[in-house]
């Protein structure tokens, strides 16, 4: 049972405060703020306590959304709830930041009143909530339809997203009730996160993909959408792979609004999406990727003990198809402690490399990397007191990148049909991206 719920800004301003059970005082907000500002680095911040009062919070950009309780609640429940609250506020107000909260506090309180009663979670479904909400949202800026043509991924705010969220992300879903003639649209994103470990001998030790299909929908509710996946899509480790480049995932879960009647036979998902954002399905596969890994690294290390110099020659090959490319590639190479300087030779001028003495590593950045091409870098490191064991400290190499328009699982959306009876047909957008989660190559 949640006792209080509040939102504070990173500067400590109280934006929303709701006491649900009349047990606590408002001072708690400042106690929380002081606590969170004085956190040591490695403390898991998801739960904190102060004199028997438990704080559970999530951070959303510059805002802290916090729930307090004195019971032995489930932190999962509370965190999930806070995450839903964020997306509901976004659905209603377009974005979530200090300004929208100040403009729409009455709406947020109204939402909270319906979502929580006496600290019991009632509902987080936008379809149910919209029956109760009276307040009309106020947006700070009229959004420009023209900007919609310039689309980024609305859902790509994963850990390291460099993709600027488009205006689609900051558009309220329910605001158009009064505005007529606005475009009906639907966005589908297929987002995958790739985890790879390649052993020192070049063998693949681990490869996992965590994927999700997300949808943001600007359609009248109770519109059915039929989404066709690859016909060869199969679930489960036991299935024998077919001849074609089948798409196989180990596990898969679907949102409760997904109807799977046509899934077994035709790999069609029937979704009646609530307005706003939802994760249609989540899936994962491991070990057995249908495509080759995006990057291969061929390292050579020379040690010159006399001059205390370490020469690291990295040859990096991008094995994507020539039509594709990788963006914002970063290669981190941990180097022995005491490394004093770095000199480098890189194969093209847009690349950069620098030695970061805090993390004791070399960062090599490549803004754009075309499929089928190969880049190389030579790093000369001055390491006073170089010894045989210094080599142990070299590596492993970690890479970060994003691969637009490609998925490692091979999952594709074949079609997206909207059973809308009223023309015009809504615009439909389907986008793909793969992010590196943890891509590690051992030396």
């Amino acid at each position, binding site marked *: 049972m949640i006792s209080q719920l509040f939102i504070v800004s990173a500067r400590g301003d109280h934006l929303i405060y709701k006491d649900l059970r009349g047990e606590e005082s408002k001072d708690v907000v400042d106690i929380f703020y002081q606590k969170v500002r004085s956190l040591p680095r490695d403390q898991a911040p998801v739960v904190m306590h102060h004199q028997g009062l438990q704080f559970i919070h999530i951070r959303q950009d510059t805002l802290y959304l916090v729930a307090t309780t004195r019971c032995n609640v489930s932190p999962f429940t509370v965190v999930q709830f806070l995450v839903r609250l964020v997306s509901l506020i976004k659905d209603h107000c377009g974005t979530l930041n200090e300004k929208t909260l100040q403009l729409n506090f009455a709406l947020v309180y109204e939402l909270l*009143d319906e979502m929580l009663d006496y600290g019991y979670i*009632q509902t987080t479904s936008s379809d149910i909530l919209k029956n109760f909400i009276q307040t009309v949202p106020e947006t700070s800026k009229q959004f420009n339809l023209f900007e919609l043509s310039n689309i980024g991924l609305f859902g790509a705010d994963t850990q390291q997203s460099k993709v600027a969220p488009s205006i689609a992300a900051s558009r309220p879903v329910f605001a158009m009730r009064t505005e007529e003639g606005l475009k009906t649209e639907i966005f589908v994103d297929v987002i995958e996160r790739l985890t790879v470990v390649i052993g020192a001998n070049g063998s693949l030790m681990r490869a996992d993909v965590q994927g999700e299909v997300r949808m943001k929908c600007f359609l009248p509710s109770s519109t059915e959408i039929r989404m066709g996946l690859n016909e060869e899509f199969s679930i489960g480790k036991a299935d024998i792979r077919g001849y074609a480049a089948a798409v196989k995932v180990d596990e898969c879960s679907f949102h409760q609004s997904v109807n799977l009647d046509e899934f077994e036979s035709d790999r069609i998902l029937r979704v009646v999406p609530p307005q706003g954002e939802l994760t249609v399905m989540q899936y994962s596969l491991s070990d057995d990727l249908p495509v080759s890994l995006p990057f291969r690294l061929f390292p050579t290390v020379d040690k010159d003990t006399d001059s205390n110099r370490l020469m690291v020659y990295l040859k990096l090959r991008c094995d994507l198809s020539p039509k594709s490319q990788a963006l914002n590639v970063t290669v981190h190479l941990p180097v022995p402690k005491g490394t004093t300087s770095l000199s480098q030779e890189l194969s093209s001028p847009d690349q950069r490399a620098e030695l970061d003495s805090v993390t004791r590593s070399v960062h090599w950045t490549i803004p754009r990397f075309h499929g089928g091409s190969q880049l190389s870098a030579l790093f000369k490191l001055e390491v006073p007191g170089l010894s045989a064991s210094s080599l142990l400290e070299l590596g492993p190499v970690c890479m970060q990148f994003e691969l637009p328009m490609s998925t490692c699982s091979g999952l594709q959306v074949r079609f997206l049909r909207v059973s809308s009876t009223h023309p015009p047909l809504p615009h439909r957008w389907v986008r793909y991206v793969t992010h590196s989660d943890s891509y590690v190559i051992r030396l």
Partner: protein
Amino acid sequence: EACPRITMTDSKYFTTTKKGEIFELKAELNSDKKEKKKEAVKKVIASMTVGKDVSALFPDVVNCMQTDNLELKKLVYLYLMNYAKSQPDMAIMAVNTFVKDCEDPNPLIRALAVRTMGCIRVDKITEYLCEPLRKCLKDEDPYVRKTAAVCVAKLHDINAQLVEDQGFLDTLKDLISDSNPMVVANAVAALSEIAESHPNSNLLDLNPQTINKLLTALNECTEWGQIFILDCLANYSPKDDREAQSICERVTPRLSHANSAVVLSAVKVLMKFMEMLSKDLDYYGTLLKKLAPPLVTLLSAEPELQYVALRNINLIVQKRPEILKHEMKVFFVKYNDPIYVKLEKLDIMIRLASQANIAQVLAELKEYATEVDVDFVRKAVRAIGRCAIKVEQSAERCVSTLLDLIQTKVNYVVQEAIVVIKDIFRKYPNKYESVIATLCENLDSLDEPEARAAMIWIVGEYAERIDNADELLESFLEGFHDESTQVQLQLLTAIVKLFLKKPTETQELVQQVLSLATQDSDNPDLRDRGYIYWRLLSTDPVAAKEVVLAEKPLISEETDLIEPTLLDELICHIGTLASVYHKPPSAFVEGSRGVQHKRLPPRSGSNESTESPDVTPSAAAQPTEQQPAVIPSQGDLLGDLLNLDLGPPVNVPPIPSSTVQMGAMDLLGGGLDSLMGDETEGLGGDLSGSPAIGAGYGTPAVMPTSLTAPLGGGLSDLFDLAGGMNMPSGSYVEPKTVWLPAAKAKGLEISGTFSRRMGHIYMDLSLMNKAMQVMTDFAIQFNRNSFGMAPAAPLQVNAPLAPNQTIEVSLPLNTVGPVMKMDPLTNLQVAVKNNIDVFYFSCLYPINMLFVEDGKMDRQIFLATWKDIPNENEVQFQIKDCHLNADAVTNKLQSNNIFTVAKRNVEGQDMLYQSLKLTNGIWVLAELRIQPGNPNYTLSLKCRVSEVSQHVFQAYEVILKN
């Protein structure tokens, strides 16, 4: 203090306070225009949010309440909820509108009214709310019913009696069978919460029929409702394994839910009910397989949720390792995991390590050991050592990995490696000693006590194989007094070992260390150990050799395991905060909520009954009042939570001065002599001629048995003294009972009782050492308790407690400590620390300990007070089977500070009017009626704080019957 910061903003509602702002708002609120009114209320609420006091506008806002505009109404209600409590008189103004709104044709307004009513926590108006609430509970619209269900819980919190009297609880129970799943879910949630404050009320009467209803609702309600229902199911005890299985079958589909909170609640139900299934059952295997994928999926969440998931998985892996035994890979660390996730993963990796996957694990650990983060690297190095100890086949590879790491010369890596290699030597003696030379090369770089101590241990243990062992150890001696205790003790032992192995070359060294330890040190542990060695060496070197160089017991394979009973309790709390802290909820939840201990159901299979305590479900639900409750020890967090500060042993009293004054440098001769002479008269003479160490060696001196513990003897006098205070002073003292059984406290058994002597309260303790090792460094601390009871002095245990030895200690108490109401009232939670660990237990003190000596009330005052205390505070008890006359009763009670103020004889009955006062100034007045020939007395107690009456009655019974 809440100090609202007002931000610069362009929002029209958030402007800084201006003079007359309230006045302006007042005018706007009373405007005729609806829009203007609404805007004004919004401004008021904006001010409220940032912490401004706008309570002065209460009447004006309430005036806006009667409106058809739902949006405005909602805003007004929002304001009401916030300020009604501070304006109880004005809140009554709102009642009529509430009552009216509860009859509104629009269900949204009915629900809004009933929801807001419950949030107005003003006692005065609750009774007006009963009728509207009753109607809403039976409303035709489910939205109104589900809101009304929650309102019952709200009202119960304000006035529990009212809710019971009005029969709302029964209505709530009926709602469990409601056709709408959301109503069911809220009814379950409300009942669960109410039931927690009445542990034995049987409010949530779970039987196969209700369970069936809940399982049906489970499939239909929202994800949040599913969580309420699953959590409620987890409290049910199926009658047999069949029922358990059928519930499991119906819960399993929840495992694939997208909401991880639903998944975890389902896992909790399954883990609990699995306990009842036989492992031979096919279904048991199926269930195991089904549990793995959802747990793995949890690890793809955000890092914070991953951490929570990992803490839960850590419990599940300890309880049922088979679930995740094939999933080792998912626990491999990703380079971008936050450190807290990495450390938790490492822990799980070790728990899952087995012969089958050890090669893979080791390869990973080796990689981790060269990472940048110091904490993580340390733990990885330690993990390699734990692998070696756990999986024998891997030991060799682990040792060579550790040696590689030592070659890096990274200071903290080397130190961790040496600490774990010591353990590997312990586990596999005479196998890897070839690496000692490499270890010795790194002696100089060790600056952490644990690593130094480990290295010294290794040198001492293998002194015969290390040519320059004496030089190595001598090098540590120079800074002996700057070393930590751990290192000092280890150095003392190592040098004694060395001496026993190479006596000829090391006499001087051993003399030196014994002198440092016994003469120059203030640390009693060190001195004691020094004396023991000293005496051993001087009296019976052969015995010394047997003792010091004895074969060591094997070390255990698993470390850091959670104690089984705690683990079982935590399994019942999967997915909750308890599972994140790895503490029972009672450790961090104040008050009654959630303090009930949950247990796993007894396993149905016969041969596995040892796995969980043999408790029937009904007994499990009883609060453990009779049994002393052992609070399982789990590290420091619990200590933190209980606000305990168990620092180093407090105030070690000086050893009786006679033993300290040993000026003689001839340690083993004269020094010992004087020691013996002082401590045990008449026997010292035998030893006076004791030659100095080298010579003494050849002639095995026979030690008189009575001399074996001279120090102990001296101290036991002290304890006799303490024991002697336990003389019968008239006040009744209960016999000692076992508070902390040895099995729960690593061999320390504590029994005790309370006594009151000469106006002081004492806790009389017997500490018994049932372990194989000596116990030292005792300290004690109390948690906050109802009467502020706290130790008035440190726990004085002046000598180490040898195995099988018992010490009686009397701990003086006072009542000026911090106060917190406990349940039961006389519950006392105690933490005892010794050199091994910190242990927690709780006990009940008889309330008569708190009866003070000046508790006799003046007659007149007695009469006035008796009348003044309201009659509902009077409680009547029967004291049965008592065969004393009035005078004997008076005397007996008087010696326990219950004073007879007056005595009357009415129609042959003796009426005794008595008074007593508790340490915190609470008076209790009593009337005791004794009829000649009737062994049953009637006792009427009157006290302003009626909760104590029950305890006072118990005190009467105990005193009169003993």
